[in-house]
């Protein structure tokens, strides 16, 4: 049976305002709403598709911080067979190096054939966990992938890597491998709240202690700050009607209205 591992992470919810801590060396995590990393959501969907098509077993792995249980209940409701939480007793989410360290210790114990995770998360700047996990494991890696397939059977899988202009590079990769997903073959499936609620009653999580350790990067953070506006749009203000009229006048002046 094929063993698939999907890694999911929480990242800052960019719909909300970001707040930097007073020391200006990190986000203020107490004031930062977290959400599932978008490409991890797609990786989970791709893992579910592979599991369904090839009668595999899907293990979902996450670090235990924030409201990760809600994400994991959702994963269980969608069809994850096994859920593992890596204990993370620190106020800040783990950085890429810490993730790679812990996953590098955990994955070999899972007899995984295929590890999928988002090819990048919004907060990564001194590491990219998916590629670096592959290197740590000594496994092949392809990232920025839209969909994986096994048409011929056996240990070689087709992956479709995204390039500009909606062009895809069709590639083959030998398992075991880590695949960095950008987009799943189909949009992440909807799961009704009632099924998530039901999963919260029945799903069992395994929590693993001592797997994750703090790791320092050689990259020193000097300052974290909100992006200042270097140039800025002329902002139109007023009621909706006033703004709309003013904008139409401007479009006429600029000669862009047909």
């Amino acid at each position, binding site marked *: 049976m094929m063993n698939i591992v999907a890694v999911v992470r929480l990242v800052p919810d*960019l719909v909300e305002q970001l707040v930097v801590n007073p020391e200006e060396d990190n986000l203020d995590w107490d004031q930062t709403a977290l959400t599932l990393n978008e490409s991890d959501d797609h990786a989970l969907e791709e893992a579910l598709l592979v599991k369904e098509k090839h009668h595999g077993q899907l293990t979902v792995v996450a670090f235990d911080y924030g409201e990760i249980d809600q994400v994991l209940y959702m994963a269980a409701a969608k069809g994850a067979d096994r859920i593992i939480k890596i204990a993370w007793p620190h106020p800040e989410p783990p950085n890429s190096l810490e993730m790679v360290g812990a996953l590098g210790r955990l994955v070999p114990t899972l007899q995984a054939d295929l590890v999928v995770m988002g090819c*990048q998360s919004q907060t990564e700047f001194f590491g*990219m966990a998916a590629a670096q996990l592959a290197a740590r494991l000594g496994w092949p890696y392809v990232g920025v992938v839209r969909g994986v397939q096994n048409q011929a059977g056996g240990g070689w899988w087709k992956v479709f890597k995204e390039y*500009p202009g909606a062009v895809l590079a069709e590639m083959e990769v030998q398992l075991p491998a880590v695949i960095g997903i950008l987009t799943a073959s189909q949009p992440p499936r909807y799961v009704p709240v009632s099924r998530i609620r039901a999963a919260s009653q029945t799903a069992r999580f395994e929590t693993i202690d001592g797997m994750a350790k703090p790791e320092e990067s*050689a990259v020193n953070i000097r300052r974290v700050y909100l*992006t200042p506006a270097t140039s800025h749009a*002329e902002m139109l203000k007023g009621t909706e009607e006033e703004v709309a009229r003013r*904008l139409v006048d401007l479009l006429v002046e600029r000669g862009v209205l047909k």
Partner: protein
Amino acid sequence: MIRRILVPVEIYRNQVTDLTREVLAAARVVGGEQCEVVACVFGEPPPEAVARLQVADRILILRDGQVGQPVAIAQAAVLSRRLAQLGVDVVFVGSSSWGLDLAPLLASFVDAPLIANCQNLECTTEGLRATCRICAGKLLVDVEIGQRLAVVLLLSGSYARYEVPPGKGVIEKCEVAPEEWDARVTFLRWVEPAREDIDITQESTLVAVGRGIERQENLTLAEELAEALGGVVCGSRPVIDQGWLPPTRQVGKSGMTVKPKLYFALGISGAPEHVEGMKDAELIVAINRDERAPIFNVAHYGIAADLFDVVPAIKEALVARRQEV
């Protein structure tokens, strides 16, 4: 002080990418006159591709027998065995689909730190300073790294406008032994998108929707505005990923690069990956609830409001004007 910067060259369909040329310019600017810039090409590049690398002092061609196939893991492994011998201090990689694989793998193989999402770099006596853009461009992080080998992923647009003088352009060729090549990943072919859809790069007016459109049924609002303006609807990645619009309508790094006369951005935050594909539009109008959204940094006119309130008003104003005329 940085003595030598290596730039892996991305060749996409026999052409050196614009991003590679930008990264070479960045290496020249950041390294200064005393620094040697080495361009590293894989495979058997066509002469016209090599001719586009004259900004470099040295052009190292690694003949890998794979004719430049974009297999980043194999190329990273080949490079990793040569960095020490070449005396490279820093590797600059363009943040493309290929670069996003190559850079972290190479950094891991040589146990060097990786700095990703860089938009500015500065060489100091202590090492290298960089500014990284994360969280869809909403957050900047200034970082520094001491005097040690490092791999840097540079965002497109950071050094695009720099004009730099040519380097020495000395060409060296080097054979890659078959056993050096990681054969566990292979390139098969390029898959072109289905072209039954319209070509948004040819449209003069585009109405782009982002995550702020919230639901597929709300696309009607954008379509009505596009119709009133005589344009068509396109989108940023989250909308395409949901399957609400076909991939041929995606604007941005892995989608289309567009230069319309008018670009309306509805509910688009302005992530660097999206801005890369639309920043050269002649006139950009952005509507977003978040007045700090980075899209307002590239837009000419901005409206910080709920698009579901403003867009119907704009549509009405367009209709009213048409009736006046």
